[in-house]
Structure formats: C-alpha cells, structure tokens
C-alpha cells in the first residue's frame, strides 16, 4: 500500500486496522497501542518549534512517499559480522526471518514477538511497551502504535551467555516504511552481549522507525552495540529505552556511519540503587548526512553511576547533533553522572550542534559535562610532520585515533576489527 506519512492518514490507518475506540474484549497490549496512537496524535511529527528537534528538521523526510510493508523477504546479502562466533539472527523489514539457531543451549528464548505473545505471554504482558515513554518522542509513540511484530530475546535468570547474539538487520523493502520492535529481557544475574548491524541496503528513501526496549533485572549485565550503515536516502529513527533494576549494568555503543537522516533517541532509566550505565557513541557524517544523537539519563534513584561519551566527525555538507541530558531527580542522592561530547568539523559547510544539559534536583551529587568542538590539534599535526609523515597521512592518523577511542570500548574483536577497517575507508577520503 502506497501512503503518505501524514499524521491524519496514519491515524486513519490505525483506526481501520485496530480501531481507535477501546473495546471491552481488547487486550492490554491493544490498549497500550491505543494510548500510543493518542500520544502520537497529540504531538504529531515534530515541527520547527519542537525544542527536541530544534536542529533536526524531519518534515521533508516524513512527507515523502513510503510503502508500508512487513513482508519477510529473503535475503542473500553477506553480513559483515558473519564470522563472529555467536548466535546469529537475521531480520528483513524489521521482522525475524531466521529460525532460532539450534544448539544455543538452555536459558535463552529467541522468537518473534507474535510467537512470544502466545508462548511467553506472561513475560510479554509484563514488559512489552512498558519502558517506552510515549510522550517523550512522537516517533516512539508511532512505532508503539503500529508495531505488529519484532524480535523477542529472553535471557533466563543466572544465565551467562558466553558468546554474543548478533542481529543482522539486512534487507529492506524498496521505499519501505517499517516500524520494527525488539524486546530484550535479561533476568536476574544474567549476562548477555547483543550486537546489531544495519547494513547498507539500497532501498530508496526508506523509513525505519524502531523501538528497542531492554529490561536489565537485578545484578544482570547487558552489553549492546549498534552499527548503523544505512543508505544516504534512508530515514532512520532509533528509539532505545532501557530500564535497569538494582545493581545492574548496561552498556551501549551506538556507532553511526551511514544514513540520510539518523536520529538516535537513547533513553536510560536506572530505576533502582547501585546501577551502572555506560553510553558511548561515535558518528561520522559526510555528504549531506544528518546525524542526531539525543540521550536522556534519568537518575531516579540514589547511588547510581552513569558515564556518557560521544564523539563525532563531520565533513562536506553534513550536520552532527548531540543533545545529551542528565536528569537527577530529588531522591537520587549520591548520583555520579558524567557526560562528554567531542566533535571535529572538517569542512566549512559542515555543522555541529551540541546541547549537553544537566538538570539537577538533588544536592549531594557529582555531575559534570564537557563539550568541545574544533579542528584537529595543530601541535599534534606538526609533531607528526616533523617525523616525516605526510599531511594527509598525519590527518588520517589523528582522525582514526579520535574515533578509535569509542571503538576500543567494544570488547568483541570481530566488531572492533570491522569498525577499524570501515573507519579507515571512510576517513581516508575525508582526510
């Protein structure tokens, strides 16, 4: 079905498919979707006046023509992370197409969300769509309203998955509009690493609007990496909502190297004491790319720690945006929260917008943020030149070193090596 992503048409479509009026027989899931479409209807797509989309105009993008499709098309693309020793999953149009791999042992459930809603109805009922804050972002609300299926990963209590779960988000329907959903539940004391790769697929002006919800139970540890390399005509909105229970650890690394307009909405709620949250991110924007990292760490409970580091390189006519907010609520005493954003501008037609915010309502806290923007360090360049290194090579060396600070925090060798190689390729042209 060809459609315009115009607000009223979307709402109409929702009414046809699900019905805007609540019925008594409706499940709690359906009701949540109704709340979501209402939140979307109230907000609409963010316009010029929206403070959180101040630097990221989406109107032109969302008004293009997309095809709504959740077809599970087959794909033969080779995946960059195929050689990594782990549990491999594959999606097309945001839907799981590979059957759950065999031999991954006990203590792990992987399935599509539709399947899980019957086989794991209690877990789905407890968690699905409860971490997403509908009022925070209209895109997340929209995705919640329309999400029909997606990926469900459930790591059982006490299970330590030694090898990572690698999700290849490969094929996209041409000019497709997809709103996939992922639910990750890591039960008490479990440990899991999840790597997501959005490979370059030429699907025209595709629009992916996804929501990932992660629940990290007591003492559990989740390590997450997302590598985004979509096509320059693609609109990619990435909503991540993380809920953390006592003494849990969550770490994410969001690497954006491709896409026309990429908006990463990363939300963290350490909702109990002694949580640890690490958010790292890197983006390289060239051509006319527009990459926006929007993060919120909502410290609701005392004695938590968060550390945020984002780095960006922009060149050509590209735009980089960083808007990070650390919110410390009144009861979140003894919070330690750090945030840093560093960016390099390589071209006079490129732009960087940074808005690192602190909003603090508790007094016994240590919070800081720092943001820098500039070109490459002249002294460092000069030093390398005195060692006989050509200017281009010296520049490349410094840019790679700058970017590797983030990549080095990923502890899966295969991912690290791949990113080293890709950064070298991308930056060689820029340097």
């Amino acid at each position: 079905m060809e459609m315009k992503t115009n607000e009223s048409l979307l709402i109409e479509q929702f009414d046809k498919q699900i019905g805007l009026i609540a019925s008594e027989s409706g499940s709690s899931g359906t009701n949540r979707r109704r709340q979501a479409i209402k939140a979307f209807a109230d907000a609409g797509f963010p316009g010029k006046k929206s403070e959180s989309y101040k630097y990221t105009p989406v109107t032109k993008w969302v008004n293009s023509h997309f095809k709504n499709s959740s077809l599970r098309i087959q794909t033969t693309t080779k995946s960059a992370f195929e050689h990594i020793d782990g549990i491999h999953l594959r999606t097309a149009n945001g839907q799981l197409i590979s059957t759950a791999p065999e031999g991954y042992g006990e203590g792990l459930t992987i399935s599509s969300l539709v399947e899980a809603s019957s086989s794991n109805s209690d877990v789905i009922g407890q968690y699905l769509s409860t971490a997403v804050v509908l009022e925070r972002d209209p895109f997340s609300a929209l995705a919640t309203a329309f999400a029909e299926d997606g990926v469900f990963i459930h790591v059982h209590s006490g299970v330590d998955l030694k090898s990572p779960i690698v999700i290849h988000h490969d094929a996209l329907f041409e000019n497709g509009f997809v709103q996939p959903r992922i639910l990750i539940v890591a039960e008490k004391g479990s440990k899991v690493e999840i790597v997501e790769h959005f490979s370059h697929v030429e699907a025209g002006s595709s629009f992916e609007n996804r929501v990932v919800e992660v629940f990290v139970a007591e003492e559990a540890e989740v390590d997450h990496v997302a590598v985004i390399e979509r096509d320059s005509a693609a609109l990619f909105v990435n909503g991540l909502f993380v809920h953390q229970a006592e003494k849990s650890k969550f770490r994410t690394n969001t690497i954006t190297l491709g896409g026309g307009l990429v908006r990463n909405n990363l939300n963290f709620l350490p909702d109990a004491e002694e949580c640890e949250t690490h958010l790292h991110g890197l983006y390289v924007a060239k051509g006319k790319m527009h990459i926006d990292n929007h993060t919120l760490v909502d410290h609701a409970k005392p004695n938590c720690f968060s550390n945020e580091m984002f780095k960006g390189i922009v060149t050509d006519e590209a735009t980089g945006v960083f808007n990070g907010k650390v919110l410390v609520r009144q009861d979140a005493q003894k919070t330690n929260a750090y945030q840093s954003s560093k960016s390099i501008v390589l071209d006079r037609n490129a732009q960087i917008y940074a808005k690192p915010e602190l909003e603090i309502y508790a007094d016994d806290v240590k919070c800081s943020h720092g943001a820098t923007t500039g070109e490459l360090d002249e002294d460092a360049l000069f030093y390398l030149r005195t060692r006989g290194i050509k200017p281009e090579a010296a520049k490349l060396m410094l840019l790679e070193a700058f970017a590797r600070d983030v990549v080095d925090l990923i502890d899966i060798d295969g991912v690290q090596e791949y990113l080293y190689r890709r950064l070298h390729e991308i930056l060689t042209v820029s340097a």
Partner: protein
Amino acid sequence: MSDNSTELLHKVADSEYKYGFYTDIESDKAKIGLNEETVRFISAKKNEPEWLLEWRLKAYNHFVSLMESEKTPEWAHLTIPKIDLQGISYYSAPKQRPEYESLNEVDPELLNTFKRLGIPVQEQERLVGIVVDVVMDSVSVTTTFNAELDKNGIIFCSFGEAVQKHPDLVKKYLGRVVPYTDNYYAALNSAVFSDGSFCYIPKGVRCPVELSTYFRINESGTGQFERTLIIADEGSYVSYLEGCTAPQRDENQLHAAVVEILAMDDAEVKYSTIQNWYPGNAEGVGGIFNFVTKRGICEGDRSKISWTQLETGSSITWKYPSCILKGDHSVGEFYSVAFTKGRQQADTGTKMIHLGKNTSSTIISKGISAGNSQNAYRGLVRVNRNAENARNFSQCDSMLLGDRCGAHTYPYLEISNPSAKVEHEATTSKVGEDQIFYCKQRGISEIDAIKLIVNGFCKEILAQLPMEFAVEARNLLAIELEGSVG
C-alpha cells in the same frame, strides 16, 4: 551534612529581604492599561519627536500581534504566572522634578531612602570616580559630575534628555542591537519604555570615571521599562555600573528592560550589574519579574564588550546579556553569579554570536541555589560559517545548598566553521563535607566556612567587578548567605 548546617541553610534560605520598604513620593501616573493611547500618552508626556512615536507605535503593533497569537516565551525553565498587562500603569514620574546642583537640594525623603539602602549618594563628593544618574521609578532625578564628563565630550544623561538634546544619535542607534521585533518583552519595552540612560563616549576618550545608575522600582503597580543605550566610539573605553534594589510589595511587579551597547573599532565597554530586586516572601509572593534583554554588538575591529552580573534578587529572572562579535578580533565576555533561594526562579546566561574573524569569547557562570529555588544557566555559542579562528571557552558551575532546590545547565553550541575551537564544561556539586570539616578544624564556624567556600566559588566573577562594586557585591552575597544568622 550535619543537622547544624542544615538548620543554618534553612535560616539562610528563610531570611527576610533586608531592603524592603517603601518611599512615599507623589508620582504622575499613566492610566492603568495598555493600548495605543498609553503609548501616545507616554510619548507626549516625554515631548518626543514624531519619529520616536512612530517607532513606539510600530513596536506596539508588533507586540499586539505577539500577544494575540500568545507568543510569550515559554522555552525557559521557569513557571511564569499569567501577567495581566492591562493591570499595570505604564508610566510614573516623580512630580517634583527639579534639576539639582548639589545633593542638598534633593528631596530629603529620597536621600533617606538611599541612606537606608546603603547607596553612597551622599558619599559621591568624596568618592570621586562615580557619577550617579539616579533613576527613581522611571525618570532621572539627579545627575552629577556633568562638568567632568562635558570636558571630555562624554554624553551621559537620561534617555529622555538624550532624545531632546541628541536626537540624531538616538535615532541612528536606537533598536540597532535589540530591534523591537527581537522578542516579546523587548517589543513591549520598545512600545512603552519610560526612561533610562543614554551614554556616548566620543572617539579616543577613556571615560575617567565609572558611570553608574541606580535603578529603583518604587511606585506600587508600576511596570518598569527602562531603556539604556551605550555607544562607545572608536578607541574609547567606558565602565558602566548598574545596581538595583526595590521596596517590598505584595503585588508582582514586571520589569522588562532593554540595554543596547555598541562598540566601534578598538572600543571597550564593561557593563557590571548587581541585581537585588525584591524576591518575594517565603512563599514566593510579590517578587519582581525581571525579564531583561541585554545585548551588545562589537561593531568594530578589536572591540570588546564585557558583561559582569551578580543576580540575587527577583522572584523570576529571565536574562541573557549577549555579545554579537561582528568586528574582526573582537572579544566578548560574560561573568555571572546567580544566587537563588526561597521560591526564586532564575533562567539566565548569555549568547555569544561569532561573526567576524579571530573573535573570542569567555563565559564563566556560577549558580548557587538554596531553599526551594530553581537556578538555570542557558547559553548559546554560535560560530557562523565565515567566522574564521573563533575561540570560545565556557565554564558553568553550580552549587546546591539544600535538597529541595534545582540547578540546571542548558548550553547550546552551534558550530559552522572548522577552524573554531569551542570548549564547554560544567559541574554540579554541593559544599563538601570535607571542606567544612577542614574549616571547622581550624576554628572557623560553620557559617563562616560556608561563606568562605561560596566566596571562593564566586571569586573569579567578583574579581571582575570594579572596586566599589566588588565590595558591595561581596557584602550582598554574605548577607544573602547569612540571612538572619549574621
């Protein structure tokens, strides 16, 4: 923190406003309400030329369009109650308006007011170096040291006088930096501004004295709409001081001032403010709404504009003294201490707009919040495409003196030139228990320790103030901290 110090901080936060009293001077008021007639009344009252009335009316029409489309600024981290603009009298001038030769001729009641405020009007003859152009409500009452200024060709007078005596200068520069379309409150000010100060420093003149204006809100229910215009011609220098305090009122008073500064080639303007308007009672009732637009443009090459402010008063502060760095090698500075307690709300900061080549800016902001107050820094650093080699350093530190207050930082960095170097850092913390412990160990009482630590926290800013002001600022801060304890 120990109970002792908690109790102390509560006392500090609960301390009553020291300067709350009301001077009984008859005034000449405009009819309550805002309409075209009000604008015409003010303009006629001030005997203004046609072009200025037209400008005011344009501003008024623009303001009406903003008001009708309800375009009040809502982006700040402030809860602003609805202001009844029709319930305000837009003009009030003291009825007795003689020109004084010496202070002896001034209404003794007025002198008494200043005495109680501790404003050194009477000391002026001794304190050579300060010229005070006292603004009581909206009209200038006294100007001194004119002779000294005249000798150098410096013009320093009330805005109304400047309109009469130097209409060309006013016409040329009014609205150049802050056009009436700039924002909601600037539009309102442009339509109904009553008076203010005007200052022109001619080419190559270094103003021998520090120019100073004390603003006061006096008449109950009168909005204060000051307009200040400072022009520093090529190679000149001026240091301008502004300080204010207001009597206790139960009714909210709106203060929407506009300050415009122009600095030509090699000129330097230093603008210092101590703001101590009535902050409202413990429940936050009756304080001043301070919605100010202050902006300077470094028009010429190698020019410099420096803003220093100590903000301790007002129930709501909405204020962003800014610099447009247009000239090559121009410099902008912003130094600020904002102290909030009780139910005060402050959203203050700056904008540094880099347009010229080799421009640099420094922002140092210290926020201290106590009681139930909310204190936010909001600042923009913008480097335009052609602003080669721009340099900015920003530091925004916040200190919390209580667990029911808030400290927020909202910096905006917009960079469109690769040669720019922009650095921003911010920290938030409370007074360290270890620091207090160390002081107490050395026999320093807890209140003195807190004063010492807060003073150290703000030292960088207070050091920027001219001598007389620095002393006043330090005392004010100490009083604010001490409250009823001291």
